[in-house]
């Protein structure tokens, strides 16, 4: 299928998400759409897929201008989408998910499960994508769930596949497998539109690259272009992709976690006997595919989740099962994974959010009443020092962009003396510029002798920041390695494989 976009413009109120976007995907081509978070990639996809209607411009399929009232029509016309958050019903079988909306039936509206299975087997064989049609989706690993999404699109005779940030939840090995699938699909004549902000992947697979920034196409690029060239196109200026770190000799152990067991919301053990330590002047980066216990581990350290067994000590003091307030008072700064849920009170001002962790303390409060002058002065200083872009310190924090919201949290947590700084996914959803900034702040803290624990599912970030890298899988540490370790080895550790003599 040949897909052509001509002058697509989409506005939300006064905000223009897409401005006169032109793009052509040829049959059998892997076309990468590269852009930062918030550049307008998702909006454009939703326009193509019929979830949004463009304000101006045309979507042409094989030369014919088309408009889809809903995504069902897009699917019927041969457009398949693999969503970043899978559109799969977890409790259904693979077969039920694949045929949903296009079910084969017998008399009395009965589902023809036999035919559904056969259809899946046929498509599976044709494209070499093996999946058991009777498996329950939620019991499959993420990589296979994504394969089900692809199968679903193919079984609806998709000629154009849109893959929206498909690698975010995959291990490096699963990413390789996905790339192989994409190449073979393209070879069989399918068109592929691959959306991402990861430069490595783009260079590995793209036939054509279109870069968009702030809702506009800024140009096309070649897979042979360097990462630095792609990044500067994406961001609009030169970007330093590496993090400069001086060599620092780490000091004493600040945080020691021993045999920790923590349960998740369903009551199942998510952290299953984790032991690790963070020394002063060292960044320990915890790598792993999302959902392997990182969230629960950090919440346990921050006092937000009860510890089942095991101990957490901070500079020799036991802080196991302490309350969040006690943990704060012990000198732990915490940048939570979900900044809007746990990091900020969205309906409060920037100034108030900047003192959320110390509201009762002098100078911000005295004898039970707040000292607003001190709060505002603190806010003015931090906004300047951390370059937080806001109209005023009194503005609601919800009015800030994602990157600036994250800066508010980082500023708050680093604005007082700490023993340990814990940051979960510190740069998720940030633009490259903000990432650079947050990374520099983290490295500065380490250089000043603080212990730092970083949790990230971005391997690039882990490799760039970590002095040591601990890999977590299935609630256990599967290895602790040096940052010089190959990506492949770390990838294997992320799948739970054992690597011998991993002392770093």
């Amino acid at each position, binding site marked *: 299928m040949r897909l052509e976009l001509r002058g697509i413009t989409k506005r939300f109120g006064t905000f223009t998400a897409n401005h006169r976007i032109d793009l052509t995907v040829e049959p059998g081509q892997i076309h990468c759409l590269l852009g930062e978070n918030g550049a307008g990639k998702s909006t454009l996809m939703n326009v193509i897929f019929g*979830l949004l209607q463009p304000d101006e411009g045309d979507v042409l399929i094989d030369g014919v201008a088309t408009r889809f009232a*809903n*995504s*069902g*029509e897009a*699917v*019927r016309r041969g457009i398949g*989408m693999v*969503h970043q*958050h*899978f*559109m*799969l*019903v*977890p*409790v*259904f079988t693979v077969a*039920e*998910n694949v045929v*949903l*909306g*296009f*079910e084969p*039936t017998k008399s*009395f*509206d*009965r*589902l023809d499960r036999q035919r559904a299975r056969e259809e899946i087997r046929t498509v599976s064989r044709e494209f070499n994508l093996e999946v058991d049609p009777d498996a329950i989706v*939620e*019991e*499959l*690993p*993420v*990589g296979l769930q994504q394969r089900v999404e692809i199968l679903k699109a193919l079984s*609806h005779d998709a000629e154009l596949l849109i893959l929206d940030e498909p690698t975010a939840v995959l*291990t490096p090995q*699963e990413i390789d497998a996905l790339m192989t699938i994409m190449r073979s699909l393209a070879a069989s004549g399918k068109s592929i539109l691959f959306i991402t902000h990861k430069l490595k992947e783009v260079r590995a697979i793209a036939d054509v690259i279109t870069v968009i920034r702030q809702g506009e196409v800024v140009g096309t690029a070649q897979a042979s272009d360097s990462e630095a060239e792609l990044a500067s196109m994406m961001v609009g200026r030169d970007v330093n992709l590496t993090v400069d770190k001086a060599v620092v000799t780490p000091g004493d152990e600040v945080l020691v976690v021993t045999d920790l067991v923590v349960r998740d919301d*369903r*009551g*199942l053990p998510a952290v299953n006997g984790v032991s690790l330590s963070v020394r002063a002047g060292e960044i320990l980066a915890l790598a792993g*595919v999302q*959902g*392997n216990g990182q969230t629960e581990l950090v919440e346990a350290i921050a006092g937000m989740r009860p510890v089942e067994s095991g101990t957490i000590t901070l500079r020799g003091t036991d802080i196991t099962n302490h309350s969040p307030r006690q943990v704060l008072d012990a000198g732990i700064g915490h940048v939570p994974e979900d900044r809007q849920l746990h990091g900020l009170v969205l309906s409060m001002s920037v100034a108030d959010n900047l003192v959320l962790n110390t509201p009762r303390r002098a100078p911000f409060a005295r004898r039970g009443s707040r000292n607003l002058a001190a709060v505002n002065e603190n806010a003015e200083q931090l906004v300047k020092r951390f370059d937080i872009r806001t109209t005023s310190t009194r503005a609601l924090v919800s009015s800030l962009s994602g990157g600036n919201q994250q800066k508010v949290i980082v500023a708050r947590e680093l604005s007082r003396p700490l023993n340990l700084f814990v940051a979960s996914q510190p740069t998720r959803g940030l633009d490259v510029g903000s990432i650079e900034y947050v990374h520099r702040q983290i490295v500065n803290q380490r250089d000043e002798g603080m212990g730092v624990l970083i949790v990230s599912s971005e391997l690039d970030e882990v490799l760039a920041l970590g002095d040591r890298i601990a890999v977590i*899988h*299935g609630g256990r540490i599967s290895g602790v390695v040096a940052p010089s370790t190959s990506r492949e*080895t770390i990838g*294997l550790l*992320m*799948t*739970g*494989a*054992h*690597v*011998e*003599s*991993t002392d770093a």
Partner: protein
Amino acid sequence: MSLDTTPGATTVAAPKAPTGRTRGIGIIMLVIGLFTALVFGVGSGFSAHSALTFNPVSLTNAPWRLGTLTLLTAWTNVVLGLVMIGLGLGVAVRLPRRGVMARFGFVAVLFFFALLFWAARTTGPSQINFVNLTAVLIGSSALAMVLIFGSLSGVMCERAGVVNIAIEGQFIGGAFVGSMVASTTHDFIVAALVGALVGGVLGLILAFLSLRYLSDQIIVGVVLVTMLGSLSSYLNLQVFTPFPQYNTGNLAPNLPIPLLSKIPVLGPVFFNQTGFFYVMIVLVALVSFGLFKTRWGLRVRAVGEHPQAAASVGIKVIGVRYANVIMGGAIAGVGGVAFMASQGQFQPGYTSGLGYIALAALIFGRWRPSGAVVASVIFGMSVYLADNLQTYQVPVPTEILGMFPYVITIAVVSGLIGRVRPPAADGLPYRRD
């Protein structure tokens, strides 16, 4: 550095039912069994006996007569207790994956009968020394029927992702209108249809407020129940009190099924019922078949589990939800008429929380029609016994038994026994964006 790739290493562990909870149910069954054997068995003394009779009160359809079975109370209850202990041990030790709730339900029913035998023992305070099995089953079946209508209504709504807490209100509306229509037309089919209409309109209001205006479904539901309760009291005073002819003589006739109704005990309980009972049976089969075997059901369940996924393949989420909430409301409306027809007339407040018990049965039955039936039978029986135990002068307040459905529901919902998992999008507003 050598690498050892574990085969089949996966990134996500499959969720498994915690075995501890299944074991908990087994232990609770065991404790109930022990209690039965010791208190109702040994505690009633070995000289006492209770009589079990089988002949229905109305003998018109019973060409058979069965004699009275005289039981030694103590030994009977010890045996019942041992059976319950055996079932409990089986669950606690073998941790079966299926049928745990059904076994628990069976133990609950055995417990009720042991309680009855104990209450009717010759050495007890009661003048009545017999238990009429057929009468107990018939009385319980009338309540179970109403609960099944209610919980089926809940299944319809919640499987599509809308919590219908207004079942009680739909019962009240159906009962009120049903009585009025039945009194004037003397036709229960018309009454049932009008009851369905009223229930459906109440469902439409719930759907409209929660789907169009994204109001909190629980609050809308409670508002509807409160409104119907007050409105029906007011209209009762204004209409039925001055014109009692519009609210009288509405006992639905039994429609015996030829031959089958003549079977001893089972005949009167299952085959000599009102038309509502048979409609209920057909509805259970229809909803069960529809939800789990048809394309319609697959789509409804997809909408209740993951509306975005359903929408992404062109299923109209809001439309499915409207249809199901209206159909669910209609089913509950018929349930209200059925309840009225089993009582003969409308009385303000006489549904006394049956709609909420139906909701409890829905949860206990794990959002499945079959499970809802099992739960409704147990809960119907406990409500019936709570209403009728006074006659045996049991030295325990009957309200304790009346609490049974709620205690069980709290235990289930809190995860104390069993694992319940509602449809993932149940009660959540859906926005098309």
